[in-house]
């Protein structure tokens, strides 16, 4: 599945299903299980209906009644404003959603490690 058409075209996977939603919603909208079921079901049908390498299904779902959300993506809010880098500063410490998550993970590590965390060529965090 993808919500970034140009990137997926560049990566060139054998098959894909494109959903024209904002990033962070590749498989649907929050708390809309019916809609999400249609989206994922339609994406999966590509495994049965696409027979040419490089084909992409264009899923028919729309994020909103109009496409205005697209205008502001990665762009300054007005012509006089500067581009800003909204991404978070990057460092190599775990970035927990909550402090409670951190406490649970650290307790798990203290008990002997996280069996379902797999680090490849990096040392454990």
């Amino acid at each position: 599945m993808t919500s970034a058409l140009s990137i997926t075209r560049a990566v060139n996977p054998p098959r894909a299903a494109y959903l024209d939603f904002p990033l962070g919603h590749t498989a649907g909208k929050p708390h809309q299980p019916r809609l999400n079921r249609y989206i994922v079901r339609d994406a999966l049908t590509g495994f049965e209906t696409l027979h040419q390498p490089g084909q992409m299904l264009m899923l028919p779902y729309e994020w909103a009644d109009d496409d205005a959300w697209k205008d502001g993506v990665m762009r300054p809010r007005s012509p006089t404003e500067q581009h800003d880098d909204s991404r978070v500063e990057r460092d190599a410490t775990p970035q927990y959603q909550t402090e409670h998550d951190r406490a649970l993970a650290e307790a798990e590590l203290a008990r002997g490690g996280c069996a379902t965390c797999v680090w490849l060529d990096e040392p454990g965090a």
Partner: protein
Amino acid sequence: MPSTRPPVDYIERTRDQYSALGYPPYQWVENAELAPWAELAKPLSQCRVGLIGSGGIYKTGQVAFHYKDDTSFRIIDTREPTSTLRATHFAYDLTDARSDPNVVFPIDTLNELAREGFIGSLAERAYAFMGGIYSSRRVRGRLAPELANRIVRDGVDVVLLVPV
């Protein structure tokens, strides 16, 4: 009103943003050759379906991802409630993924499709990583082959990839 604007071209917008910020251009992965083709060997209704997502999903009790070329991944038990899933990522708005992880990691959605019989089953293990990895060499050389080995070992017939 129906869709009036073309798909957002993230490559072009990233180029513009990087240029405005004075960064060197981002090197997107471009594969001229197609990946090897494999037809589905049986109907979806008989397939064990796997799930791999790059939206930075982890489960409470697991170590969260960090934001500096983290090539690690988490094994997620698809039979456990998705209310214990969390999301962490530096490059997209996490609000909705934190409210309902199914938007980037559709476990409930796939479990529902399995209950209905649209797919044969959802594999017991799904895999999650944080896709903001700037080294495509490490993804290609380490992470992708490791995930591929795992899903083959899990006996899945087909895998849904859900990037962000």
